[in-house]
């Protein structure tokens, strides 16, 4: 390594250390006595046992998919803040099929639940796509609205069709609706019990690879990225931008929808609640995509990293830290890491983009 790459490596490490340090300081302020064990927990809990590691992968599954959803949109020049709603719709459809279509043999039911979730997510994602293509409504606005509509609509559907009054949630999924573990439960376990990790993580990784192939190897990907990089040039080239916006949003929706399905079919006995906050997996998808530099393969790793922090973070509760403090610490660490990756890639390509997009100041480097 020469001197300048050494320096840039050191500065990245420094930024990440700074992120960790600020996280630690927040813990200190919040509760000085417990700060050290809590901090050790967030950094190491995910690898203290194979079961915890399995839980990391389990938690990573849906956010890899929502991350892919956001990243894919980004490549097309769209900001899919609607992953949350698409996720919720997909989740509901999968849960509904799992509960109501018991006449189908389990393997077929599982596959149809996932496919139907993908379809429903795609249709939901198409709404902002259509609005943008034909009415020039900014996708961020319509995504925010469709997020809330999805949440309230699903609340209503749960209460109407699959309600469990005892728990005030949806009914729990029958055991034969869970995704197969494919032996993963033998690898990822500790002395007490196995992790719930299942084939979902493998599906998520395969999906990421598929998205990578679509973006990098196909004419469709070529078109989408051309639109994302330079709309005017794409138009000049005769590429149908409107069609691309709609298809792109549908694919994003399908990805988030599958995320929703996998999130509830994982054997943990999770039921869909009647909620008044948007599904956080959708927003985590934004951090995951950001941290993975919007690269599908990068998203696999960033999804796992974010899950790792969340699993460790959740554990910090045993030291008496409130969930809000924990969220702040995790977010700070994620954003400092993302900052390092971002700066590293963009400095290479010229500072143009960030300066132009984020600050509206003068461009510095051509």
């Amino acid at each position, binding site marked *: 390594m020469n001197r300048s790459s050494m320096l840039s490596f050191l500065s990245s490490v420094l930024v990440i250390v700074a992120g960790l340090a600020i996280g630690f300081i927040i813990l200190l302020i919040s509760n000085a006595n417990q700060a050290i064990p809590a901090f050790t927990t967030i950094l190491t809990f995910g690898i203290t046992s194979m079961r915890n590691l399995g839980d990391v992968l389990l938690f990573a599954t849906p956010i890899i998919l929502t991350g892919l959803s956001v990243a894919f949109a980004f490549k097309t020049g769209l900001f899919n803040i609607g992953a949350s709603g698409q996720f919720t719709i997909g989740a509901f459809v999968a849960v509904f099929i799992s509960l109501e279509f018991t006449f189908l043999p389990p393997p077929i039911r599982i596959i149809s639940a996932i496919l139907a979730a993908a379809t429903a997510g795609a249709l939901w994602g198409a709404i902002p796509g259509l609005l943008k293509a034909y009415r020039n409504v900014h996708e961020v606005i319509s995504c925010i609205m469709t997020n809330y509509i999805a949440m309230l609509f699903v609340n209503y559907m749960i209460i109407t069709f699959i309600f469990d009054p005892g728990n005030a949630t949806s009914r729990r999924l029958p055991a034969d609706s869970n995704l197969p573990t494919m032996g993963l439960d033998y690898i990822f376990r500790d002395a007490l019990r196995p992790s719930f990790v299942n084939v979902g993580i493998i599906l998520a990784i395969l999906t990421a690879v598929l998205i990578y192939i679509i973006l990098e*190897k*196909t*004419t*469709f990907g*070529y*078109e989408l*990225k*051309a639109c994302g*990089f*330079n709309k*005017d*040039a*794409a*138009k*000049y*080239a*005769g*590429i*149908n931008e409107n069609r691309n916006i709609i298809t792109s949003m549908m694919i994003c929706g399908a990805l988030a929808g599958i995320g929703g399905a996998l999130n509830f079919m994982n054997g943990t006995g999770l039921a869909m609640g009647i909620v008044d906050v948007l599904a956080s997996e959708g927003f985590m998808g934004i951090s995951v995509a950001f941290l993975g530099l919007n690269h599908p393969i990068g998203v696999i790793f960033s999804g796992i990293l974010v899950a790792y922090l969340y699993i460790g973070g959740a554990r910090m509760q045993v030291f008496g830290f409130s969930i809000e403090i924990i969220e702040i610490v995790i977010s700070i660490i994620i954003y400092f890491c993302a900052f390092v990756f971002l700066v590293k890639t963009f400095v290479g*390509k*010229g500072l143009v983009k960030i300066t132009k997009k984020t600050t*509206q*100041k*003068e*461009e*510095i*480097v*051509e």
Partner: protein
Amino acid sequence: MYTIEMRNVTKIFPGIIANDNITLQLERGEIHALLGENGAGKSTLMSVLFGLYKPETGEIYKNGELVTITGPNDANTLGIGMVHQHFKLVHNFTVLENIVLGVESTKNGILQMQDARARVKALSEKYAFDIDIDAEIRHISVGMQQRVEILKMLYRNNEILIFDEPTAVLTPQEIEALMNTMRNMAAEGKSILFITHKLDEIKQVADRCSVLRKGKMIGTVKVSETSKEELSEMMVGRKVALSLDKNEAKKGAAILQVKNLQKSSGDGKPLKNISFDVFAGEILCIAGIEGNGQTDLVYALTGLSEVDSGQILMEGTELSKMKIRKRTEMGISHIPEDRHRHGLVLDYSLAYNTILQTYYTKEFQHRSFLRKDAIMAYARRLIDRFDIRSGQGEETPARSMSGGNQQKTILAREIDRNPKLLIAVQPTRGLDVGAIEYIHKQLLEQRDAGRAVLLVSLELEEVMNVSDRILVMYEGEIVADVDPKKVTFNELGLYMSGAKKDKVVA
């Protein structure tokens, strides 16, 4: 002692030595031209001086003292200012805001615009810039935008002014005005570094000229003692034909027929009842001062925008409602006016840019998968044929190519499709004399192969040399249909300024 001396500067990019041990000396009060082929390293050298690139080796001296310039701020402190090849203005800010951006004076955290306004006004009057300082950048012409860039430098009291191809985007009138401004500034003792591909401009204003070739300094000469031919030979390394010899056009059937085209409003002037034909085997030129409807006309022909009424017939087929893709497939090629906006996807590689309209054809795709090998081979073929120079060949990101080579890439792509109609809007903008010679030959070759060429150009020289027939546009109307052999420069100028007008029937 020199105002600025760059000594032994070497700057390396992946795959290319952009500046190879270059020494450049700038005297106080001189206009120093920098000449070189596309990709010779002119912009790079100036970016080093302005602190945008850190050179591998080399020193910069100001008034004999060693200085370090690590960024535009350092450059500014040392009195160095730069107008870039592609402007760097904030489009939704006003002229005044752009000028003071970065050096705002504040009092208790509140912007103090009054002093700034007075100073900018004074400067603008001194150089007779005639500019509305409260207009937003996006509403003013390119020529005006350049004045804003110049005012930015003057406002910062810069003494050393770098102009990177300032004239490439200007109309002849604006160029004249810029030349005057430069002379005035030099007379006040400011030193100017001036990049241009136009030898006439060098002859007009520059005192000395340094020539770069493939990253190396070939030499610095006194302009008054050097002929244009000598300059171009230094630059290219061989003799260049500065004028074009061409044979008679063999005019064939009408390829494109435009009938009563109307468009009420657009980016420029409304189009008023435009009718003309373009024939196979001819180069038809649309001349005119920028902003007289040429852009809208080209957009209408290529499908980038719609028209209100009228017909566009290509070999008898009605085009005016057709999608862009369809028109391309019908045999229209388009070298766009704005290469960064329409012509290129800067984040794609050179190779990916060469297939922008053909990526979906059998040649480049198999069952929806891009055929990378075929694409790369195709790009290499174009690189060879059109002599496109870049650091990493077909893999070079378009963004890191020199301006002229970006233009050549677009040209290569559009010409190689063997169109029936080639619409070329300022195809030689930003190209060096060697490349211009080459492009003009290509246009002639297309013509001689029986294709129709529609050339839109702002440069009278080019209009007169290349075309077989000239239409002049003024205020969205065609006001003349003339033969370049019979018309004089002067007459053309009268048409262009609206002083003279014929009744033109296609």
